[in-house]
């Protein structure tokens, strides 16, 4: 199994623990990730707020480079990248004017967009290409007694998720169960974490983060499992400010790939667990 890998800026920055843990876990499962050469920023929501055509051109450049370097789908672990690249694909498939303009722009870099490479999230690859049974077979240290709230964030399942339910996605639940963990019934699975508003409008943004942390805690979770660098950053980084405003809700948030790495018996130091502000002590103790 070989994929084009689009890490995105966050996985090289604040979310580098996601990249660090994703690579060895995928390798263990026989998934080859070939990083797209000279990839650029996906544009995220900020670019879409500024210029539609340019936002599509940014995404299209990455897809075009991947397509020109051989067959295979693109794996984008960051929810925002996953959505931005898929949004680009949808726009270019349905809107011929934008497509023509983007092709013209790509021609400047001698690139052509064909739309043949699908953009997929690691969760989809793990559940549907690798398979739950293979994941289960690789578990050497089951995450017994750990109660985990699966948190998917908003931009994976909305607006057009092809592989999981919009309201109640279950891909991560299934992986967590395979790892031996206890999955907490968590109705806020797909509620927004606050996104970049935690920095630009903290009053509003941090409240959303706090709601998710508080509800996970009320439901008795030891940990929150995440699949998006921004979600993980928001849930992990503002405990002091949240405590000041609404009272403490100290519950660690880690990446699903970190949990998988621990269960697979990979060396802890390879999984970037030390990068957490709020250390996942229970996880480290349990395994």
């Amino acid at each position, binding site marked *: 199994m070989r994929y084009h890998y689009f890490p995105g*800026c*966050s996985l*090289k*920055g*604040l979310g*580098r623990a996601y990249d660090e843990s994703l690579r060895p876990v995928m390798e263990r499962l026989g998934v080859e990730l070939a990083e797209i050469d*000279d990839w*650029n*920023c996906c*544009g*995220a*929501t*900020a*670019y*879409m*707020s*500024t*210029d*539609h*055509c*340019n936002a*599509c*051109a*940014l995404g299209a*450049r990455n897809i075009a480079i991947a397509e020109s370097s051989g067959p295979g789908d693109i794996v984008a672990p960051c929810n925002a990248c996953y959505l931005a690249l898929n949004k680009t694909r949808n*726009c270019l498939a349905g*809107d011929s004017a*934008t497509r*023509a*303009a983007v092709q*013209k*722009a*790509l021609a*400047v*870099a001698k690139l052509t967009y064909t739309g043949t490479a699908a953009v997929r999230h690691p969760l989809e690859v793990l559940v549907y290409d690798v398979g739950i049974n293979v994941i289960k077979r690789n578990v050497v240290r089951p995450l017994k007694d750990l109660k985990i709230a699966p948190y998917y964030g*908003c*931009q994976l399942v*909305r*607006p057009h998720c092809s592989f999981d339910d*919009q309201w109640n996605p279950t891909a991560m639940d299934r992986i967590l169960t395979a790892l031996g963990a206890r999955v907490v019934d968590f109705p806020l699975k797909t*509620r*927004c974490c*606050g*996104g*970049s*508003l935690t*920095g*630009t*409008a903290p*009053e*509003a*943004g941090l409240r*959303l983060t706090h*709601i998710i942390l508080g509800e996970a805690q009320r439901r008795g979770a030891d940990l929150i499992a995440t699949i998006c660098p921004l979600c993980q950053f928001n849930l992990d*980084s*503002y405990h002091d400010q949240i405590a000041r405003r609404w009272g403490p809700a100290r519950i660690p948030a880690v990446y699903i790939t970190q949990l998988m790495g621990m269960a697979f018996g990979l060396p802890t130091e390879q999984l970037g667990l*030390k*990068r*957490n*502000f709020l250390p996942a002590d229970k996880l480290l103790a349990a395994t």
Partner: protein
Amino acid sequence: MELGQKIKCEADRTAGFGKAIAAMPGCERLGSCIQCGACSGACPLSIYMDQSPRQVIALVRGDFKKQALSCNTIWLCSSCYACTVQCPREIGITDIMYALKQCAMSERAYPAGLSIPILARQFVRMVVRRGRITETRLVMRFFLQTNWKAAISSWRLGLNLIRTRRFGIRQQHIKQHLELAAMLAQAKNANAGGSP
């Protein structure tokens, strides 16, 4: 108590604004809105908005351009798409918010004192110049321009980032950043005149 008129007259409208927004990508179904409010109910941020998403749709459809572009609603939208997937009329509300943001950006019509558009502007500038975002640099620049006090009060966050070795100060960039800039300039020209 000071009295102020709330009435709106024809002069307050911008003829063709609603139609122009509806012509933008993803906004085609704007006209089907039945004002049920499912979008506002679904929106996790509507409690902070000065106009609810439903009201924004009504303003756009009624050609009230000034009110639609100057509300904080479009900037508080975090693009979580909760409204879009719940709309019983399948209106691309998130895309309409994007269209309004693009319009407000190009006309600099966003409310004064709102820092969110400034982040978007700096984000775009960094992408055009470097091809990638270096988050810590972007955030520092943003705070310096908007609220340097906040930057200082976030010292604990900064220290924590240094402690966890995530305080990347070195600017990330792609090899072909000049080519990318040329590409974006080309696409921007193609898009010119598309904004209402």
